[in-house]
């Protein structure tokens, strides 16, 4: 087998002329794992006619595995490049396990690589010495340890990372070993470079070295274990793949857009003579083709053209062609996404489905397009594809959230890790040290929406978030900050929302108008194929640990809004439907915006009256901002200036020092991941003091009326806000200034929303109950006046009185303020509930 490659075919690198004649995509690749694995197994399963493996394979292979690279091997590496790496490596690999079986002693002598033949063997056309690489790989597999466990004496006690991994693979009878390329780089940068540059050759050696180790650990282990490299140091953009990348190991990110059906690819064919019934030896795929024997090999028969393929004796392997497309964020302006084909084999088949975002490690290959099978001329074109080695699903389009200590399943492979490289971290830390970082971040947030600085500061706090707290008793305090924006139309609320949505981790953007309760939380659906009931997550569950942006909050149906009560305080969604009882996490911040019920905000009415939201829900928002369009000449002028500059100036020049979106995202995600500020003692004191003061403000000396200016909910909000503010500074401690700023933010928001317009003071009752204290006092006085009038005017059991007459009387008595019929109705119904009067339609009767 190995001798069939003519040594004349010399090539060095990507444009091997051998490639020119290579077959179409399907045939170039044969997996050694399977090839040798099955070959090894065959003797036991079919001991009869096929027990002797194809002689060519085993005779050419060297007796001593340590000296595998014979001259013929070398040529194969050079010329067989077009064949696919696995095919080229098949010979030595097949040889390895078999010879260790036969002569285990040869490999047991420790490092069996002190071969007597010291002449270095090089992979063709390169400066890779096979022995060196082999040894380097062996050292790596044997000795590599995670850097965390590098306390000198311990390190010797613990087994190497990959030795453990190999043992685990053996235990599970797995067929592949995942090798982190970062580990390779950390241990031996030179090996890493060689591996990336000459993956075909190095991976073949890798497999040999691996099998050597395997046979040493468990000499009876028969399966072949393949090396799967992943997590390369640098990942290439699909767009930047160019001819120099051919035959190199590359790593790409993209989205799977199409998967072909699974293709059974023939690996070995068995023919039978139709005349005498003689079975041929298995014929191996060569250059993607199987040559049918022209005549029967049996000496007595020798019939011509009598051989026919026996399908069920042939060996097939799975193959799949997958198309990968660039992710939208990599596409430059005015371009369409690029695509690339991936070739998947064996275990990799069906690992991804269309729509998955994946990171693929593989070898970039090219092969020529033939004009026709008969013509020797080739078109000068290449088709390119990637021989897939490893595939990893990712979803990293947005910034990452979540505290690692809260991770749900720490055991699971960390597929969602954004690793901040040191340089980036350094840069971010530098940023955080700037004295004006808070203002700078504020400026960077939606820079084209000017003004609204306090709102932006609030939103910034929401992005950073506070610390969630779980008490051992089971009580938990949310760290997410909920914000409601109420305002006149055309005040760029929606733009703010869109912006936050773009920026936020796992942000979901919905419009209240189109959302139903189930769409927001979760619903049970029947799977159309299997008929099973499945739980489908809604927007809130999907934005777990993210921000759920709800536009047109006021237009949302009553039903849907009521679902939010649980989400916003308990941070869970409970569902009891169709036999499924579940409580799903929905640790999401809610950012909602609402329009006043009239087209414009009526400053004379309370927030509740303006937006018609139940007070119970409103009180769950930490910050409520009113964005009003005030008839202010200053703002008008700024608007005019802004628009004029928009039209006549170079828009780029107008932008001052702001962070770009990606930096901002990185900054926020880093802070959310790594910074967990705690309250310092002074800050705690300051909080207490401030809160008490806020409460006290409600008590007017000498006045009987009690106005609640703050509730326990506010102090929770304050803690969250101050934590978020500390996070902005990358500070592990919440300091006084954070608390002061948190108070200021809260006050600004409350002044806008919770101010009782009749008295001008902050009144939390407005938010919590929808009725201000002054309003309540007015109602009480109205009630007592009504009671008095009825006592005066009506006899017990006497004739009834019409409401309108009563109103006249009332107006006479209370001359100061205006009395509405509605107020009276309310008062009368209260009296009726006391059993004082009876109401029939419009008439009131004393009882």
């Amino acid at each position: 087998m190995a001798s069939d490659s003519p040594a004349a075919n010399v090539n060095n690198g990507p444009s091997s002329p051998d490639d020119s004649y290579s077959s179409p995509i399907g045939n170039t690749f044969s997996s050694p794992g399977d090839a040798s694995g099955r070959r090894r197994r065959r003797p036991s399963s079919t001991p009869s006619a096929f027990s002797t493996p194809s002689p060519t394979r085993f005779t050419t292979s060297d007796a001593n595995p340590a000296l595998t690279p014979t001259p013929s091997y070398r040529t194969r590496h050079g010329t067989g490049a077009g064949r696919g790496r696995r095919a080229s490596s098949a010979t030595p690999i097949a040889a390895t396990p078999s010879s260790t079986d036969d002569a285990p002693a040869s490999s047991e002598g420790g490092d069996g690589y002190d071969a007597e033949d010291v002449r270095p063997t090089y992979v063709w056309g390169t400066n890779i010495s096979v022995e060196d690489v082999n040894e380097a790989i062996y050292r790596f597999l044997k000795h590599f340890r995670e850097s965390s466990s590098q306390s000198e004496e311990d390190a010797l006690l613990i087994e190497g990372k990959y030795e453990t991994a190999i043992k685990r693979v053996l235990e599970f009878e797995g067929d592949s070993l995942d090798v982190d390329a970062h580990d390779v780089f950390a241990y031996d940068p030179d090996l890493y470079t060689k591996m990336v540059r000459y993956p075909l050759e190095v991976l073949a050696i890798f497999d040999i070295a691996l099998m050597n180790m395997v046979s040493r650990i468990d000499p009876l282990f028969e399966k072949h274990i393949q090396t799967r490299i992943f997590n390369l140091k640098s990942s290439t953009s699909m767009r930047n793949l160019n001819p120099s990348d051919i035959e190199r190991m590359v790593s790409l990110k993209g989205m799977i857009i199409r998967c072909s059906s699974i293709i059974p690819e023939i690996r070995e064919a068995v023919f039978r003579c139709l005349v005498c019934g003689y079975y041929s030896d298995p014929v191996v795929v060569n250059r993607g083709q199987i040559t049918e024997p022209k005549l029967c090999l049996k000496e007595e028969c020798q019939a011509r053209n009598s051989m026919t393929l026996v399908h069920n004796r042939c060996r097939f392997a799975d193959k799949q062609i997958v198309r990968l497309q660039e992710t939208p964020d990599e596409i430059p302006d005015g371009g369409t996404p690029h695509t690339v084909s991936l070739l998947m084999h064996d275990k990799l088949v069906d690992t991804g489905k269309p729509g998955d975002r994946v990171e693929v490690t593989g070898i970039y290959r090219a092969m020529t397009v033939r004009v026709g099978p008969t013509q020797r001329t080739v078109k000068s074109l290449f088709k390119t594809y990637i021989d897939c080695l490893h595939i990893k699903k990712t979803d990293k389009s947005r910034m990452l959230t979540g505290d690692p200590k809260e991770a749900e399943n720490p055991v699971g492979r960390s597929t969602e890790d954004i690793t901040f490289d040191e340089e980036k971290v350094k840069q971010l830390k530098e940023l955080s040290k700037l004295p004006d970082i808070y203002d700078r971040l504020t400026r960077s947030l939606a820079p084209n929406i000017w003004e609204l600085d306090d709102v932006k500061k609030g939103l910034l706090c929401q992005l950073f978030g506070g610390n969630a707290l779980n008490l051992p008793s089971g009580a938990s305090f949310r760290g997410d900050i909920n914000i409601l924006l109420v305002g006149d139309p055309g005040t760029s609320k929606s733009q703010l929302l869109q912006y936050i949505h773009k920026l936020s981790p796992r942000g979901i953007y919905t419009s209240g108008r189109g959302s139903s309760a189930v769409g927001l939380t979760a619903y049970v659906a029947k799977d159309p194929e299997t008929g099973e009931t499945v739980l489908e997550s809604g927007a809130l569950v999907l934005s777990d640990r993210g921000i759920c942006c709800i536009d047109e909050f006021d237009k949302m149906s009553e039903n849907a809004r009521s679902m939010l009560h649980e989400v916003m305080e308990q941070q869970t969604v409970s569902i009891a439907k169709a036999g499924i009882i579940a409580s799903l996490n929905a640790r999401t911040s809610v950012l909602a915006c609402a329009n006043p019920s009239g087209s414009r905000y009526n400053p004379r009415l309370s927030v509740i009256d303006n937006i018609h939201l139940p007070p119970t829900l409103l009180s769950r928002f930490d910050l409520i901002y009113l964005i009003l369009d005030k008839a202010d000449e200053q703002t008008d002028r700024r608007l005019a200036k802004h628009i004029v500059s928009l039209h006549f100036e170079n828009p780029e020049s107008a932008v001052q020092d702001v962070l770009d979106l990606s930096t901002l995202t990185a900054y926020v995600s880093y802070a959310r991941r790594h910074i967990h500020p705690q309250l310092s003692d002074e800050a705690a004191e300051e909080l207490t003091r401030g809160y008490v003061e806020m409460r006290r403000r409600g008590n007017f000396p000498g006045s009987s009326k009690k106005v609640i200016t703050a509730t326990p909910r506010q102090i929770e909000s304050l803690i969250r806000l101050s934590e978020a503010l500390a996070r902005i500074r990358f500070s592990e401690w919440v300091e006084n200034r954070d608390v002061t700023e948190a108070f200021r933010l809260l006050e600004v928001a409350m002044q806008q929303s919770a101010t009782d317009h009749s008295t001008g003071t902050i009144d939390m009752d407005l938010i919590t109950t929808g009725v201000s204290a002054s309003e309540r006092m007015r109602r009480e006085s109205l009630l007592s006046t009504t009671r008095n009038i009825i006592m005066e005017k009506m006899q017990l059991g006497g004739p009834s009185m019409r409401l309108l007459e009563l109103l006249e009387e009332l107006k006479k008595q209370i001359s100061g303020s205006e009395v509405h019929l509605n107020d009276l109705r309310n008062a009368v119904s209260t009296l009726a509930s006391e059993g004082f009067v009876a109401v029939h339609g419009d008439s009131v009767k004393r009882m």
Partner: protein
Amino acid sequence: MVGLPYDLVANPLGAVRSTFEKAAASSGFDPNGKDWGVLDLFRHFLFDQGRLSQVPILNGETIRWIQPKTLVRFRAMVQDMLGNEFYVGAYQDGSVWRTNKFTDVSQFRLDDSSPHTQVWERRLLYCVPVPGQNSWTEPSSESVVNHCKDFIPQQREKRRRMDDEAIDDMNMLVSDNGFQVSPSVKKKEDGRPSTSSQTRDSLSEGYCSNTSIAPGIDKDFLSCLVKIYDSPESDLKLNDVFEFIGVLTLDSELNEDKDDHDEPDNGFCDDVMEHLPPIKVPRLHCLIHRKLAAPDFLCGSPMMEPKPHFVREMREVLLRHLTVVLGNDGIAAHFMLLHLLSRVHARVDTVAVGKLSLNLTCFSKESAALFGSRLSLALKTLLPFTHCIPLTLEYLNSVSLAPKKDYETNRLVTGVLQLAEGSHIIIDETQLEAGTLNSVGMENARLLRNLLELQRVEYDFKYYKMEMAADVQLLIFSEAKSNILPADIVMPFQPSSVGSSEVVTAEALEAWRWYLATVKSLPHSIESEMQKVVENDLVAARQTDRSIGSHDFNRWLTMGRLMSLSFGETCLSLEHWQMVKELERLRRERLK
């Protein structure tokens, strides 16, 4: 470059090869795919020597006359990008370096014994004629045909005079790759023509049979697969209009051999090629490409500098013409002029600055039919790319407005809204009746609205949508203010006469086209004093009427800009600002 050995128009590849071989022979040659000077040769020939007009324009008409492997010009819009293609760029034939640049097939057999081959890459662009292109933008085909007709004998003359090397060259070309176009040629080829006369014969036969290939190509819609060499990615964007000058190949031999697919499930690697057989879609190996703007489509000689008095005069005449077309509605004509001059000149986040869509209201079905057709006719003669969308329920519910990615064929299927920059669309809403919109209709309405408000079109990539910036002028006819399509300007249309349209001379038309194209692309700025005045006006307006918002401000400023541009001035003056305010006042009066 003295004494060109090849006719660059008839045999551009000869020039490519000879220059390459010359470059390769020189010491220190590095076959890295970079240009070795051939582009300068062509640039010098085409632009410095002004021979561009000698290069025939490729379209559905002329493809019948143009021979393959000659230089052509192709004006088209980039409709889809098919990614990169790797090819053997240079290889050693014996000890000589040869190149495959600008061809599909290698000139010599690529031998597996060749020790050195270089893989280079090129970009594939699928280009189509610009959607909605009006006939006046194309140079009259007659001249091209004539040109081509004399072109052939001329070529033969040339060929005869070619030196031996060239003939050998051609010989090789024929015998190796073969013009397997028709059986007759094939027969000839079997005989292996060795003399130059025979070569010529087979060549001419090749030409004849080429004309018989042409029917495979859609006459009205000639799309082309353009292969771009050595040009940065940012140069060519989707929906840009370009003139590609390059080598045309129509070879049927490129037809991929179906036998190659001995495995039917060969994956989907060559989908694109399969769906674009060379026989239907010619290949163009682009040597030089240049972006076309509206002025490039003017046929006449390039006019002089935009002189103020001249522009002013032109403006008056055009305004008069528009007034006539609009049934003597002078104010509407003013708005129309501004509308026709609008373009998106900047984008600040989501805001497209400079767009000015116009909604003419108060149409009845009858008047819409009358004025609509008249107006669309008038615009057709004035603007290079125009479209008409009759907005009916069925249309909305069925048409696919947005381009969509078809992953089966790996192609971007075009939609109505995939338009070149500066296209004009008339949307006739008068035909819309009450009814139900299905989901497609809703989506389409949303797309139109997005285009109107943001000048963006969402391309459907199935797993996600991708927004593409557009620059399209939109004119809407409706009975009352359109709510589906909220335009920047709502203008009640009040025609006073139905007078027949005037006869316009060709010269006048040409002048107007020039006016519109030139004035539109002028730069514009504002003095700081004027800026103060404008700001004060805006603030005052807002103080008196709270309902005026940024939307109105944007409109006024755009109008101010366009107004001064329409006079050929690059700076906003008080006079023009007053005119804008006056126009707005008149419009507001009509709205009442």
